[in-house]
């Protein structure tokens, strides 16, 4: 797997004196599922915000498919094939679940004012959105205003919207948290299916069962810096990771 989709090159992001992300480099191959783990406050979400364009890096560069994207706004990153979910869910609250997904389907239309003049509520877009909702398992809630969903379903909606962007790179920020085992297992299967379609996945997850089970490789951040990188089984037994992150009872989570 030498075909590199995304590369972070010495990326830093500072907030005042705080180095939330500090000189981090790693890369993600096409079709890979890469897990991003690390203690609370390690800078994982900040990394996502950098990759998806919500923040610009203070230093360093982010390269997607050979293009340097540092400083690109989120909507350009979306157009370049980055789809993401938010750790703190951000539904379009008064819009129905279906409409939420349709927003994402419009990605190709938002490029110019002219192309955005076509009608959106077509049978085709409805069906496509429904299909995606079916995949994440909330098609029966299509008509509900998204703000009224319980948290677990809002996480699924996040995933549905990201999928609707037909991304090359999918960023999942704790999408599995707040789901019980059965539900998480179903979404894990979905993520594997997505990867089978050639989509790369970058995944933040504190649920080690999920993170270890899904990821081909893991990158561990601590205090904004890269702590370790490697195969799940190596990371699990890496003493630095155990000490900083997993804790002594590691086995109970990572079984």
């Amino acid at each position, binding site marked *: 797997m030498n075909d590199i989709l995304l590369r972070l090159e010495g990326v830093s992001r500072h907030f005042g004196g705080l180095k939330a992300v500090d000189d981090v480099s790693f890369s993600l191959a096409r079709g890979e599922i890469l897990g991003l783990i690390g203690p609370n406050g390690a800078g994982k979400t900040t990394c996502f915000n950098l990759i*998806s*364009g*919500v923040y610009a890096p203070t230093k360093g560069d982010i390269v997607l498919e050979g293009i340097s994207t540092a400083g690109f*706004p*989120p*909507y350009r*990153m*979306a*157009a370049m094939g980055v*789809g*993401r979910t*938010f750790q703190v869910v*951000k*539904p*379009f*609250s*008064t*819009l*129905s679940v*279906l*409409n939420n997904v*349709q*927003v*994402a389907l*419009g*990605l*190709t*239309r*938002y*490029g110019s*004012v002219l*192309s*955005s*003049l*076509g*009608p*959106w*509520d077509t049978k085709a877009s409805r069906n496509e959105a429904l299909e995606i909702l079916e995949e994440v398992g909330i098609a029966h809630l299509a*008509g509900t*205003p998204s703000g009224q969903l319980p948290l677990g379903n809002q996480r699924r909606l996040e995933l549905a*919207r990201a999928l609707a*962007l037909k991304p090359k790179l999918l960023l999942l920020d704790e999408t599995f948290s707040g789901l019980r085992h059965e539900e998480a297992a179903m979404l894990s299967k979905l993520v594997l299916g997505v990867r089978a379609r050639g989509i790369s996945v970058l995944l933040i997850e504190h649920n080690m069962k999920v993170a270890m089970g899904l990821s081909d490789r893991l990158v561990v951040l601590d205090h904004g810096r890269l702590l370790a990188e490697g195969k799940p089984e190596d990371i699990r037994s890496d003493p630095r990771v155990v000490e900083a992150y997993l804790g002594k009872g590691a086995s109970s989570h990572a079984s």
Partner: protein
Amino acid sequence: MNDYSITILTFIAIQAIVACGLNVIVGYAGQISLGHAAFFGIGAYSSALLTTKAGLTFWTALPLVILLTGAIGLVLGMPSLRLREDFLAVTTIGINFIVESVFLYVPFFGGALGLGGIPSITLLGTRLRGPNFLYLCLAFLAVVLFLSRRFTRSWGGLACFALREEETAASSMGVSPIRFKLLAFVIGTAMAGLGGALYAHLMRFISATDFGFTLSVSMMSMVVLGGIGTLWGPVLGALILGVLPEVFRPLIDYRMLLNAAILLLMIRFQPAGLLGEGSLLRRLFRPGRDSAHE
């Protein structure tokens, strides 16, 4: 119908046009604007100047007026990209005051004396008056409603809804906040410009105070009262706020008090607007209709 009711209805139709524009900005794109009267004024003044000083007719001036107002809307809409919510609300109040004082202070705009001698509108060789002028306004209102509806059904409209709800998420879904907020601003202000032009040629004389903050407030009240973000809300709001003072007219001394009281009561008991989500009217006429777009 007598001349008096026709005049009232004509004003209502014009205000409905302008309120529909405001609805695009506030209701669809979620950008609070309390300075909409400024754009109404810009439309009125530019049409008045083009017809009196540049010798154009209403019809030849109209496209220019709409373009110009939209363009100014584009420029003055810029602050909305940096500011949020209440900051924006107060900034737009500021824009209203500044535009009003420019009309009032710059001699080119007639200064404190206003602009008079604005020609009336002629169509097919006849001067439009009374009912004919009303029909013209209604025709334009129909166009504006049609465009509003088209907008809500376009991807651009959906993009605005998304921005209204959650900007970061919308942006991550490919929606450029700059492009679509400004689009809404341009459409909304252009509609105000159209209304302004009609107003100028109806009144035949305009002055800065016609376009003050109080008017912006009543525009906003129309939109909120009718049902923000709904298609017909602004029209209903304009109708109610246009007719109420006439109903209370015989009460002279208590008229404005009752007016304010009714506005307060309506806001208090139908906060989502008369046609808004879950409102009385809506439940009566469209039971069981789902979802929030339109």
